[in-house]
């Protein structure tokens, strides 16, 4: 190279920028991927018989009856431990998920009545929330000073005041629904497990925690995976004193699967990091039946 072809300061800078920019595209070789897929829950899981005072029992099918769905990625899933599919249990009794997520999170709806009853992705607006519990399920909802809650705006203003939030997005209760009814009458939601270490052959398993029945009295329509003593906090502001309730810490490490919970008969095996992991919760724990997804039961 002759001296008149040596890089000028400007070209050196350009070269430097080019190197910097190319750094952003560098493939670090990390085998970390997001796993996207769908969860299908049977219509049966969104259906309950409810009796309102002075009325005959009625059957309700509603997306708001779909509890939180916990999705975990495990070394394997089989029938070695229980009479339903369950992740591989290690010698210390834990199942050591590689990664996981949930479809629906417990939310603070700013009144004691709602503790462990409200999930994200189940209500399009606050009136839905009030209408569901008051009109469809027959509860009387009261705020901290004992006034009956009859409109969604009461909840919204209570939350904006209590949580010092400035928007509905921050409160995180209302928005697009997670689950949509498909043509078969079942309910389908998207999920994403963020930043999972790719393990070829890993099994993706999930379970839906159904709401407690009307017979549970004061706990009716709460969820068994919601605890008031783990990661929760005491709301203690003026006249509002209650445990907010939050998800139990071991929902994926030591899943407690109660009768009536839905799990997949077949897990999704992660053999391609770019494939979609679709899961169908077609096994109702506590029964020997596998649900086909038109809402009826077909024996295994």
């Amino acid at each position, binding site marked *: 190279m002759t001296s008149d072809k040596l890089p000028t300061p400007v070209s050196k800078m350009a070269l430097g920028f080019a190197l910097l920019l190319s750094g952003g595209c560098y493939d670090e070789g990390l085998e970390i991927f997001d796993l996207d897929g769908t969860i299908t829950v049977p219509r049966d899981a969104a259906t309950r018989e409810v009796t309102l005072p002075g009325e005959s029992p009625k059957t309700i099918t509603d997306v708001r009856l779909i509890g939180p769905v916990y999705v975990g990625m495990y*070394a*394997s899933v089989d029938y070695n431990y229980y009479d339903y599919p369950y992740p*591989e249990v*290690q*010698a*210390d009794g*834990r199942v*050591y998920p*590689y990664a996981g997520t949930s479809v629906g999170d417990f939310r603070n709806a700013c009144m004691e009545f709602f503790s462990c009853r409200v999930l994200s992705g189940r209500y399009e607006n606050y009136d839905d929330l009030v209408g569901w519990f008051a009109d469809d399920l027959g509860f009387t909802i009261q705020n901290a000073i004992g006034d009956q809650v009859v409109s969604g705006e009461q909840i919204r203003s209570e939350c904006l005041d209590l949580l010092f939030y400035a928007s509905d997005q921050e409160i995180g209760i209302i928005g697009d629904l997670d689950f949509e009814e498909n043509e078969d009458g079942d309910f389908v939601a998207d999920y994403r497990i963020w930043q999972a270490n790719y*393990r*070829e*052959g*890993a099994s993706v398993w999930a379970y839906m925690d159904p709401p407690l029945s009307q017979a549970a009295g004061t706990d009716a329509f709460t969820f068994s995976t919601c605890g008031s003593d783990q990661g929760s906090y005491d709301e203690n502001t003026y006249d509002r004193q209650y445990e907010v309730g939050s998800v139990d810490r071991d929902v994926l490490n030591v899943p407690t699967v109660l009768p009536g919970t839905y799990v997949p008969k077949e897990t999704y095996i992660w053999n391609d990091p770019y494939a979609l992991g679709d899961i169908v919760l077609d096994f109702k724990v506590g029964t020997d039946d596998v649900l086909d997804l038109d809402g009826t039961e077909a024996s295994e």
Partner: protein
Amino acid sequence: MKPQLRLTTLLLAAATLMSACYSRYDGLVPQRSEGVPGISDLGVLTPATITNQGDLLNSTIYGELGATGTVFQGGLTFSFVGTGGDVCIWVDPELAAWTPYVFGNSGVTVNQFSWPDNQFDDGDLDIRGGESVYYSGTQANDLDSESARIGNFEINSTDSLGTPILLNFDRCNSVVAGTGVVEDCTIGGTLEGALHTVVLETFSLPIDDWRLSYGLVFAEGTCDEMLATLSEGAPVNELQRECVILGESIPAGEPTGSLAADAGLPTRTWTAGEVPTIEGSIDFETAYCGAQLYNYCQEEFNRVTANGNRCAWHEDPDPAEGLERCFCGDRTTLPEVLQ
């Protein structure tokens, strides 16, 4: 200089520098107190049957732990043979701690926690326990054995896809209550005939003297059952738990109790009948349990100043210098408006 000689010189210089770095850690960790074990083992204990306060007193073991003088964590261990039933480990580390209430007192309303704590006399022991086969540490006294180590109940393993996982067989997994606070663990359904190990790890030592005294009860049944028996079914709040074991604050330099030694317990342990409790510490604990701290601290301050003395917050204050030990903290450390 010949190349070989140059290399040797460089290696020697490197070795010298490395040893200099190594020796410097001595100044970064608390040093041993003479005669006080950093790691102590109580041997094999039998869980006591507790039906009343007398049973509790008779079964309480008092002891003292110091710094290991190394970077390794210290603590106390003991073993027991599983019966198939539940056992309760209840430990009360010296002494009692709280965070001062900083909103101030108003008019006739006095918050009992508005006086600061003496932060220099509190330590912390954390409980772990499980089957001895999983325990990675030793069960020895570091005054006798340099290789004595506090361990854990973690085992390396792999799942069916070959992924390394660390299994944890600690049956007291979540017992970390904090400085100066009682900690308890119920090991439910012990494995009959199997040896179990309990570890009380020294998480922190009191910074006044690097000696942590404690009271320990090891009993049959669950800790909730033990509490319910002692309180005759009445509810026991968090503060009252501090008074299940009283008098665990022990002055420095006390010889091992003769009854404890006769019972085969190691150095620096005492039974309830012989424990040399620091004078006044039981009154302090009682005030804490009854949420009467402000009154206690105010009286302590008044008494000390009436004697023409000042409070000292460290071990063994010198009376000749006009210092008296205080269990409550230094009020002048609070913001001026709260003093």
